C-alpha cells in the first residue's frame, strides 16, 4: 500500500473546556474522494480549520505529502498543497469573480512586488488571467467573471469558492459542505465538477450532510462524533455500521 497523501494522527483541539477534536486520525489516499461525516458539532469544520492552519491544534500530527504542517500558518499549509473552501462562505466580497480566482493564483504568479514596480508584468498578468478564466469555465462561471463576487447567488458563490481554491494548485482540496443550500440540480452539477477535479489528479476531502451524495461519490468515508472517530470504511460499510446509525439517530436500535 502506498503512503497516504494526508496523514492525520492524534489530532486534538480544545476550545476552553470543550474538546472539539479528541485524538482524531484520518488517512486520505491520493486520487480519492474521502468523505468526512458526522452530526452537527462533531468537529468536522474544526478538523479542516486545524489542518489548514486557521486555528492551531493542541497536539497531533498533520502530514501532507510527507511534510508535517501541524501548527504552521495557513499560507504555508497552502503552499504545502492543501486548499479549502469555507462552510460559511468567505469570498472576497468586494472583489470581482475573476479577482477572487486571481488571488488563488497569487502564490504561483511569476511576478511580485518588484516587477509591479519595474512595470514588466503585462505578459504574466495575461497568462494568470487565462488560467483563471479556464478555472471559471470549469465551474460554469466564466460569464460572471466581471461581477462583484458578493452579488452572486448563493450556489454560484459556492462554486466560486471551489474555483478559487483550485487556483492555488492544491494536491488536496478540502470542501466544507459545498452542497449546503443547493437544490438537486445544482448538487448534480457540483458532483460532476468534483468528479472532474479528481480525474485531474486532485484529491478531495469532502465534508457534507447530503448523505445520498456522500454515499455515491466517496471512495472512503470517516465518521466523527463528539470529536472522535467512530467509523471508517467504504460507503457500504458505513451504511451498515451500527455506531453510525446511532450517532445520527441519537439512540441505540433495540438489539435482541
Amino acid at each position, binding site marked *: 500500500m502506498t503512503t497516504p497523501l494526508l496523514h492525520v494522527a492524534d489530532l486534538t483541539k480544545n476550545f476552553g473546556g470543550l474538546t472539539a477534536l479528541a485524538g482524531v486520525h484520518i488517512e486520505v489516499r491520493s486520487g480519492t474522494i474521502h468523505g468526512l461525516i458526522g452530526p452537527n458539532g462533531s468537529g468536522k469544520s474544526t478538523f479542516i480549520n486545524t489542518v489548514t492552519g486557521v486555528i492551531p491544534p493542541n497536539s497531533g500530527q498533520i502530514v501532507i505529502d510527507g511534510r508535517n504542517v501541524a501548527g504552521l500558518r495557513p*499560507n504555508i499549509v497552502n503552499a504545502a498543497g492543501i486548499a479549502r473552501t469555507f462552510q460559511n462562505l468567505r*469570498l472576497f466580497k468586494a472583489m470581482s469573480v475573476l*479577482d477572487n480566482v486571481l488571488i488563488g493564483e497569487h502564490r504561483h504568479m511569476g511576478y511580485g512586488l518588484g516587477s509591479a514596480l519595474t512595470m514588466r508584468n503585462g505578459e504574466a498578468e495575461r497568462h*494568470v488571467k487565462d488560467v483563471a478564466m479556464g478555472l471559471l469555465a470549469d465551474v460554469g462561471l466564466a460569464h460572471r467573471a*466581471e461581477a462583484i463576487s458578493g452579488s452572486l447567488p448563493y450556489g454560484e458563490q459556492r462554486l466560486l469558492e471551489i474555483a478559487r481554491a483550485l487556483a492555488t494548485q492544491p494536491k488536496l482540496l478540502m470542501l466544507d459542505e459545498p452542497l449546503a443550500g443547493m437544490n438537486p440540480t445544482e448538487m448534480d452539477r457540483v458532483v460532476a465538477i468534483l468528479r472532474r477535479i479528481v480525474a485531474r489528479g486532485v484529491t478531495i476531502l469532502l465534508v457534507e450532510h447530503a448523505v445520498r451524495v456522500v454515499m455515491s461519490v466517496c471512495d472512503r468515508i470517516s465518521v466523527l462524533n463528539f470529536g472522535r472517530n467512530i467509523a471508517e470504511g467504504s460507503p457500504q460499510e458505513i451504511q451498515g455500521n451500527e455506531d453510525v446509525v446511532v450517532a445520527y439517530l441519537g439512540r441505540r436500535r433495540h438489539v435482541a
Partner: protein
Amino acid sequence: MSRHHPFYLAAILAAIVIPPFLSDYSLHLVIMVVIFAILTLSLNLISGYGGLISLGHAGFFLIGSYTSALLSVYQGWPFWLSMPTAILLTATSGLLLGFPALRWTGHFLAVITIAFGSIAQLLSVNWVFLTNGIDGVSSIPRPPLPGISLTSNVNYYYFVLICLAFIVYLMMRLVASGFGRALRAIKDDETAAACMGIDVAVTKVSAFVISAAIAGFAGALYAHYIRFLNPDSFSLDVSIRIFMMMIIGGTGSIAGSILGSFVVYVLPEVLRPLQDYYYLIWGVIVILVMLFLPGGLISLGSVLRAKMAARRDKLDPQVGSTETLS
C-alpha cells in the same frame, strides 16, 4: 471609468494651465495641496486598500523632511542624494511600524501609530544636537535642476506636480498588480487570503514600507519647498488632516486622494472669512460626507447615477441593473 474622463481631463488641464495666474498665496496653497495629495495617496495604500489605520503619517512626513533638510543644510548633500536617503530612512521606519500592524488592527493600531507620530515629533524637539530643537532648521536649499530654477514657486509647483504624476502612476501600477490585489483581499478577509496562499505578514509590512517611503518623499519635497522646518509642522493635527483628506476624498481611490487633499486644504481657506461659522460649516460638510458618501466626494457622481438608475428601474421594472466592475 470612461464616463469620468471629461472630468479628469478638465482637472488635469486646470492643474497645468491655471497656477501661473494665481496670487502668491494661492500658489502656495496649491503647492501644499500637491504635497498633501502625495501624503494622502501614501496613506490610502495602507488604509484604503489594505484596511490598516494609520494616524501617524505626520511621523513619516517628519522623518522624510528632516532627513533631507539636515543632510543638505549641515552636510551639504545635494537634494538628489538627500531625498533618496530620506526615502530610505522613512521606509526603514515604516518597516519597524509594520510589525505592530501584524498583531494589532483597528483602534489598537490607531493608538500605536499616534504614539509613533508623537515620538517622532518629541525626538525632533529634544534631539537638539541633531535637529536644532524648536529653533528648527532654516536655509534649506531648493533642489538644483539644470536649466530650470526651482527658486521660483511657479516652477516648483510644476516640479511637485510632476512628482505627484509619478506617484499616481506608481500607485495605479501597485493597485493593479498582484500585490495590490493581495492587499485588497487581506482587507476583505485576512483568514481566507492566508488560506489562498497569501503571506499576510509580508504583504502588510511591504505596504507599510512603501507607504512610509512615499510619505518620506513628500516630506523631502516639503522641506525643500518651505525651506524652514520646525517640529510644529508635524503634530498629530497633520496626521488627522491626512486621514480626513482620505476619508473626504475617497477611501481606496487615487483620484479621491487628490480631490480630498484639495478640498480639505483649500476649503478652510475659502471659508475663513466666515470666522466662527467656519468650524460649523466645515463640521457639517464632514458629517454629510461621512453619512451619505462612504466612498468620499469622488463617489458623488456614481452615487447620483445609481440613485437615478434606481428611480428608472422603479418606473420600468423590466430593466434591472446588474452590478459589474468596469
